[in-house]
């Protein structure tokens, strides 16, 4: 730690107020991390209960109504409280200023306000638990208008969370435009920042649409306005158009930051420059752009017209191109590299493997004829979880391990962390792979009961949750019990700016704003050798 910054950011102030009123981007990032962690655990518990219910046909542990509430809570909490704000707000906040050579984000107070808004939205969610909704996280009309459950409170919570998301997005975009260090040109920007930039664009441009849509839904329930009611000249499918106009880009809000994480980890543990830097950077923007054009593929069996179905199906295939570019470039980065199988690298490799399965099965669903059979079956559930857990959550876990010494200044037990990884990886596949088979055989999603021939698949899937649960607990145990002694400033010999300072960083990050003179991924080159 330099003389100018006598304490690191963790030691600069103690007590509740020093955290709750902080404008330090790193502390805000850490607070997001804890908050989303809590909701991840709550939502995961709901999913374990859902799976336990499916051990036998009919009622096993909860009633049908409770089952509907549980899968709604699981989906809504995971989507709106964990995975949408998750990686972007936590690691984005912590890392972006460090990576671009800035002392903070450009609007620190707005950043704190975003976090408070997140807490306010989350609090509304928790209050809504007293009378939870049973609509699923998609709030489809007409059921969401007609159900006696409390839909308004939870949708209002989502509305408030949306503001948090928009403000964070604006903050990151302006920060990356205005606060890059001298020499940190766009073509030297770390790929995590490119991914966060594309994510922020989506947050700013798409989130207002879901906000307005949910307000319309609230108006429909309170005042009977008729936007989605055919008897009053409205259209229930229009709700789906508006909802998915946000929620498909939101899929990329969830996955793009994780892709950025993988792009950071791959070259470090392959000791090679990232392959196709510009292709990966621009493919993030391409994904952000194309993601706005494909929302109708969620609605092939909704009564949407055949013409628009065909248009959306064709465009859906286009979004696979920039995604595949990233996957091929990550693989090529490893080719002939000096690969070190650290825990973070293992999660990254698992990301590529699982996300590719998730992505390719998405192409099945993008094909009109196949989607008619697979829509709203467990195939969709498996596809989504291979993308969201296999992709985003594995990327998130990779980041937790990779930047652990940077955030906390300590190391963790790699061996035990790898055991946790193995359990989580195996458990995940045991849970979700049988669901692909169930789906193709016709098992519908969100059904309390099922035909006896599906019981074996359901049981295997439920046993998988127990394996994954043990893995999660072990991972948390390992991360909560760091090894004694202080971590080195740069234990992985990374060339990124965030590793150029002590770990954990001082409150103001850099004593002097650095000048960047070389590309960020010069691993295994002459320049690295000289350094």
């Amino acid at each position, binding site marked *: 730690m330099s003389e100018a910054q006598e304490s690191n950011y963790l030691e600069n102030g103690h007590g509740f107020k020093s955290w709750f009123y902080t404008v330090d981007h790193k502390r805000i990032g850490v607070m997001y991390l804890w908050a989303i962690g809590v909701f991840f655990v709550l939502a995961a518990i709901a999913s374990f209960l859902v799976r336990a219910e499916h051990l036998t046909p009919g009622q096993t542990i909860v009633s049908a109504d409770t089952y509907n509430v549980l899968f709604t809570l699981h989906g809504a909490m995971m989507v709106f409280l964990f995975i949408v704000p998750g990686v972007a707000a936590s690691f984005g906040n912590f890392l972006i200023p460090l990576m671009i050579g800035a002392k903070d984000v450009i609007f620190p107070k707005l950043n704190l306000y975003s976090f408070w808004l997140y807490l306010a939205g989350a609090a509304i969610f928790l209050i809504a638990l007293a009378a939870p909704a049973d609509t699923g996280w998609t709030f489809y009309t007409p059921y969401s208008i007609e159900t006696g459950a409390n839909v308004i409170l939870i949708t209002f919570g989502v509305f408030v969370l949306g503001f948090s998301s928009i403000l964070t997005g604006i903050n990151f975009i302006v920060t990356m*435009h205005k606060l890059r260090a001298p020499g940190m040109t766009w073509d030297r920007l770390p790929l995590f920042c490119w991914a966060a930039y594309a994510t922020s664009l989506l947050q700013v*441009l798409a989130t207002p649409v879901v906000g307005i849509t949910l307000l319309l839904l609230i108006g429909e329930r309170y005042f009977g306005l008729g936007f989605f009611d055919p008897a009053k000249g409205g259209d229930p499918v*229009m709700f789906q*158009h*508006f909802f998915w106009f946000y929620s498909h880009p939101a899929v990329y809000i969830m996955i793009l930051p994780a892709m950025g994480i993988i792009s950071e980890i791959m070259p470090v543990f392959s000791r090679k420059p990232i392959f196709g830097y510009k292709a990966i950077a621009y493919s993030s923007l391409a994904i952000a752009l194309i993601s*706005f054009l494909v929302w109708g593929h969620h609605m092939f069996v909704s009564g949407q017209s*055949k*013409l628009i179905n065909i248009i959306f199906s064709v465009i859906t295939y286009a979004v696979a191109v920039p995604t595949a570019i990233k996957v091929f470039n990550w693989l090529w980065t490893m080719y002939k590299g000096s690969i070190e199988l650290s825990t973070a690298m293992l999660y990254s490799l698992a990301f590529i493997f699982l996300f590719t399965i998730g992505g390719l099965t998405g192409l099945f669903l993008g094909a009109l004829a196949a989607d008619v059979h697979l829509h709203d079956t467990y195939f969709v559930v498996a596809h989504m979880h291979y993308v969201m857990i296999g992709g985003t959550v594995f990327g998130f876990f990779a980041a937790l391990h990779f930047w652990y010494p940077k955030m906390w200044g300590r190391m963790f037990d790699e061996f035990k962390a790898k055991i946790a990884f193995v359990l989580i990886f195996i458990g995940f596949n045991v849970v979700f792979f049988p669901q692909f088979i169930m789906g193709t055989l016709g098992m519908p999603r969100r059904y309390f009961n099922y035909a006896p021939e599906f019981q074996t698949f359901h049981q295997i899937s439920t046993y998988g949750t127990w394996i994954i649960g043990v893995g999660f607990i072990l991972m948390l145990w390992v991360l909560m019990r760091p090894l004694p002694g202080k971590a080195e400033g740069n234990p992985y010999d990374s060339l990124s700016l965030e590793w150029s300072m002590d770990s954990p960083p001082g409150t103001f990050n850099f004593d002097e704003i650095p000048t960047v003179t070389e590309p960020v991924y010069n691993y295994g080159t002459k320049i690295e050798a000289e350094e």
Partner: protein
Amino acid sequence: MDNNGGYKSLINIWLLLMFLTFITVWIAQFDFGALNVPIALLIASLKASVVALYFMHLKYEDGMTWIFATYPIFLLFLLIGFTVVDMFSRVIN
């Protein structure tokens, strides 16, 4: 306040907005049939554009700001366009 024409320009814009508001109210007494909504939207869009250009300083900003400001309009047309195409091309059995 730089490059925005000063307070005189802002007052003129405010007067223009008041005038357009008056037009909105005055025109409401006439029935243009199917054109009622498009005419109301046209006046509203004009007012919004003036606010964005002068009160929000878009007129004096660089190309990057213009891209950020106008891209959502493209997205709006996209959302409305695809939704309308769907509604008018459905076959009801």
